[in-house]
């Protein structure tokens, strides 16, 4: 539009474009550079990491750093624990949050405001407040160092319920009403009509819960003590305790722990971005 009417502005616009890209590229280098440095360090020998000035590319590509991490940490077990913890929490939240969210959004029942208020109050409370009683419950159930111990408290989420409720409220009611008139009960309407429409909301919750679960540190640190029962986050914290100064090993370990989420992000990029953007518009 303006390009046609104001030809005199063109060179300025071009200069503006170049400046924009310069700023964006500098920003991108700051955002990605650390990861490049992480990978390069993970492939150097210990003595090379302590050279001054530092080398850029490894002199000798020390791939054995990665197998060394597997020797000092039960990384296979930790990876499995993390995947199961993440999957368990996420699946359970999808079921429980969507059920409760639908009831709050669409059904009328005695005490709904009071209950919803209680749910909301949990949103504000820092997670540290739940930690000790949760640990006591887990301990009493004999779940310390077990998968149920890692998963169960994370299966419930006031945030997820709130997020999906907002989503259900924004859906058109027509189809649900038609189904009700055809004699479907609320659970059937929820399952066959509302839930398929709520897919973007469910996706957003999946991504946020998976990210939070995968990266969670304080809770796993408290309910697991046996490395073979730990998720990657807690395991990595242990690795730092044991290999305090050997940064080639630490970088290899941290690269391994973060790689699955980064690969998932690259493959499902559009969904990640949409999921996050969605929480911003519905929060």
């Amino acid at each position, binding site marked *: 539009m303006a390009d046609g009417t104001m030809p005199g502005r063109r060179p300025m616009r071009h200069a503006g474009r170049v400046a924009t890209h310069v700023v964006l590229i500098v920003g991108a280098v700051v955002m*990605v550079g650390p990861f490049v440095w992480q990978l390069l360090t993970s492939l150097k020998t210990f003595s090379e990491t302590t050279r001054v000035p530092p080398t850029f590319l490894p002199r000798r590509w020390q791939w054995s750093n990665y197998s060394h991490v597997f020797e000092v940490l039960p990384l296979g077990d930790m990876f499995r624990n993390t995947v199961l913890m993440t999957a368990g929490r996420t699946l359970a939240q999808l079921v429980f949050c969507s059920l409760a969210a639908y009831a709050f959004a669409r059904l009328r029942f005695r005490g709904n405001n009071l209950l919803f208020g209680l749910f909301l109050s949990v949103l504000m409370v820092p997670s540290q407040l739940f930690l000790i009683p949760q640990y006591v419950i887990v301990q009493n159930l004999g779940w310390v160092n077990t998968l149920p111990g890692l998963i169960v408290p994370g299966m419930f989420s006031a945030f997820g319920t709130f997020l999906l409720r907002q989503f259900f409220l924004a859906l058109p009611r027509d189809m649900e009403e038609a189904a009700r008139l055809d004699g479907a009960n609320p659970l059937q309407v929820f399952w066959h009509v509302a839930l398929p429409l709520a897919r973007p909301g469910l996706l957003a919750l999946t991504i946020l819960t998976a990210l939070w679960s995968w990266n969670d540190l*304080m809770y796993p640190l408290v309910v697991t003590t046996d490395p073979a029962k730990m998720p990657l986050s807690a395991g990595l914290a242990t690795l730092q305790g044991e290999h305090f100064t050997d940064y080639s090993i630490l*970088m290899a370990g941290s690269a391994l722990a973060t790689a699955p989420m980064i690969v998932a992000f690259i493959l499902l*990029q559009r969904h990640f*971005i949409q999921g*996050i953007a969605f929480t911003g518009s519905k*929060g």
Partner: protein
Amino acid sequence: MSAADTLAAPARDSGSKPGGRAIRRRPPGGSEQGWAYLMIAPMTIGLAVFYLWPIAQMFYYSFTKSGPFGGQTWIGTANYHALVDEPSVVQAVVNTLVYTAIQLAGIPLAVLFATLLNQRGLRGRSIYRALYFLPVVTMPVAVAMLWRWMYNGDYGVINYLLSMVGVRGMHWAADPSVALYAVAAIGIWMSLGYNLVIFLAGLQGIPAEYYEAAAIDGSGAARTFLRITVPLLSPSIFFATILTMINSLQMFDLAYMMMSTPSGASGNPALPRVRTIAYLFYQKAFVEHDLGFGAAIAFVLLGFILVMTFIQFRLQKRWVHYG
């Protein structure tokens, strides 16, 4: 929109609107209510057991002291009095507030980058967005290790890069005068991509006509930004502010990982200047096993979150424009 408003709305128009819409407006009770209780039961029970009851328990603990053989003795408000007298608590509150303030200062940075990325016809937008988002999907524990390595005073790449431009480096993670700022920089680096995506979505929701009208009026870039972009983006900015604030006030992982040394965190001279409220809670409750004192700290944190969120919601009326 408050919960009460939305939930009360259907009941209000049930009488006033005859015809098709009235069919589903049955009074509460009957089978619908039964189904509703069934559907909220799992989440309600779970939240009650693992979240609501713990709050009540912690409130009780905050008035008690752990005995040498377990068990809690009631000591009244002594824990809360001790909080005020304990310098480490006061310092942790200051650290947390400074950290939070710096994270909030990262929001304008995200708005700036989102505005740059939102320019019409910009090439490589989705690639930039993906690159900026990368730290968001990375485990904070790993991020802390990585930055700790880059911050290393002897072999760190940051000191090396600084030396190339003639600046003398320092022990970023161990120097009490800079460590908190070094950690806060990581925090901004980690959350920039998240806020960027929120703002980019918000910007894309602003109708192009507003900008066209501004262009016709001869409004300059800065004026357009302040008069159109910022007000129309204000709901997204408000959301990001609340989220950043709540997350920053609870910061734990970064500080924990940056401060730890083989002999425990106390080996790091910068610890008192970096230790956040959540970190102090972890230390008191799980390392020093002082449950009551830990509980009291957690309630102080809750108090800060509630007060600051309340202030934000009050200020909201002055600057957030809902279209």
